[in-house]
């Protein structure tokens, strides 16, 4: 594995900066094992203490420029999911994504997943009630949640933030103050699609979260702003589809990127992006870690 692709994020060593984003193909060890063969790390689908059925279908749709989803944090609950993850083969590090209503619940969740290499706090799901964005738009609460989780585990803790706030940097700073080891930016944007012949919203939940290539400029800007103000590492997420997007996010300040909607194109995408990045680093002679934030210094 080429040295030039290696990145270290809050002590997690990754063979490349390509992480599987939460919510995509992350419900079973079977798919995580397959994707982790080439990914730098994988993040599971978000899990809460209790089972959640989620919204009825249609829960995920695509439009010309990305996806819109309202799955509603469907999950088997912490106990059953921890059981499912027992079959994870650890070809690459495992980050478990958590959602909860209170700091205490977040901290309790951690205890189910002591085998994980790190945790991602879903403070940003735009379509679930009382969790996700509902807790992630209050800086005080974010600080408290991160603090509680950090007390409960020695593993790195990442806060995944939403762009659906007036000032994402304010939330990022709160997470940093709470002791977060890194920030993931961004989760999906609130959005919806209406079928003009049926004259009704397509998603059963009416609206959901927009992801994919269309929102990439928004995500790059959030990473840029967070990099300017924070000291902890930033993981970029939002529309990464080609190797050029990976480089763009890294230049903006991301040490790693998450890939979700692009699985729509291929479940071999980690392999093909990795190969493209190898070609890029051979051409330029760069190590990817060295270009993190380089556009700020131009």
């Amino acid at each position, binding site marked *: 594995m080429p040295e030039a692709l290696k990145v270290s994020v809050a002590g997690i060593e990754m063979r490349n900066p390509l992480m599987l984003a939460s*919510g*995509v*193909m*992350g*419900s*079973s060890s*079977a*798919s*995580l*094992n*397959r*994707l982790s063969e080439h990914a730098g790390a994988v993040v599971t*689908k978000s899990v809460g203490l209790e089972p959640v059925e989620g919204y*009825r*279908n*249609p*829960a*995920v*749709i*695509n439009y010309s420029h990305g*996806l819109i*989803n309202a*799955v509603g944090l*469907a999950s088997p609950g912490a106990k059953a999911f921890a059981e499912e993850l027992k079959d994870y083969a650890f070809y690459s590090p495992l980050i478990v994504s958590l959602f909860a209503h209170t700091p205490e619940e977040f901290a309790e969740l951690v205890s189910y997943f002591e085998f994980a290499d790190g945790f991602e706090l879903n403070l940003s799901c735009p379509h679930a009630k009382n969790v996700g964005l509902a807790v992630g738009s209050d800086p005080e609460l974010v600080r408290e949640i991160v603090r509680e989780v950090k007390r409960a585990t020695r593993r790195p803790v990442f806060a995944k933030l939403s762009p659906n706030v007036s000032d994402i940097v304010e939330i990022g700073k709160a997470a940093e103050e709470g002791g977060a080891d890194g920030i993931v930016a961004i989760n999906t944007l609130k959005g919806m699609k209406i*079928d003009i*012949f*049926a004259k*009704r919203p*397509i998603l*059963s939940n009416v609206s959901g979260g927009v992801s994919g290539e269309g929102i990439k400029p928004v995500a790059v800007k959030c990473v840029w702003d967070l990099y300017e103000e924070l000291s902890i590492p930033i993981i970029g997420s939002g529309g990464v589809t080609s190797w050029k997007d990976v480089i763009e996010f890294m230049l903006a300040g991301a040490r790693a990127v998450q890939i*979700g*909607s692009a*699985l*729509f194109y291929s*479940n071999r995408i980690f392999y093909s992006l990795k190969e493209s990045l190898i070609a890029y680093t051979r051409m330029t002679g760069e190590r990817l870690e060295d270009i993190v934030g380089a556009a700020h210094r131009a």
Partner: protein
Amino acid sequence: MFTLRVERVVRHSERISTLYFSKPILAYPGQFIMLNVFGYEEIPLSLSSPRSVTVKAVGETTEKIVSFEGGEVVGVRGPFGNPFSPTSGRALIIAGGIGVAPLAFLHDFLKRCGAEIRVVYGVKNSDELALVERFDNVQIATEDGSAGVRGTVLDLLEDMELNEYDKIYACGPEGMVRALLGFLKERGAVERAELSLERYMRCGIGVCGSCVIENGLRVCADGPVFSGKQLV
């Protein structure tokens, strides 16, 4: 998503109907659509021809669909998924239950390819039979003996010379597929087989992960048709 009108409904039995749409969908046999019954739910359904789905009532949404009378407007996404690969040689089609739907579409397609086709079709009882008239050369097995021979498709296959067939196609309930895979492996025929799987699906487009099977592949995007080799 686009919308289609249900033009005509053929009720095969109390629990099974075929819905014909006002317009054909450009699709290959084995592909499926996500059909949105407004006010109910969106569900994956294999096409039983370019302009039809054949549905069995197993829950609230499918019960609603089976009771359609024509004129209803539905939402459609797709077609999605990996189709069967055709042959112009000798083909064996193995259908179990409502798994007959994509295989009836495949049968029409293979006929146009000039294939020589034999069908074996197993159901629990004769009430579950549908689309039988679409097949030229078909043997039926029912578990209760209410039609054809008493038994399962495996009983019908027991005495067949599988080496005669260039391609073996199958679709049916999970238990049947599992048993069939074992059988085909034993007979050294698994490399010529293509099997269509069914799983609960959310997105239909390969991102949500709800239809992932044991080997990590996605029924919606890497399947629903898999080669026998991918499954053993």
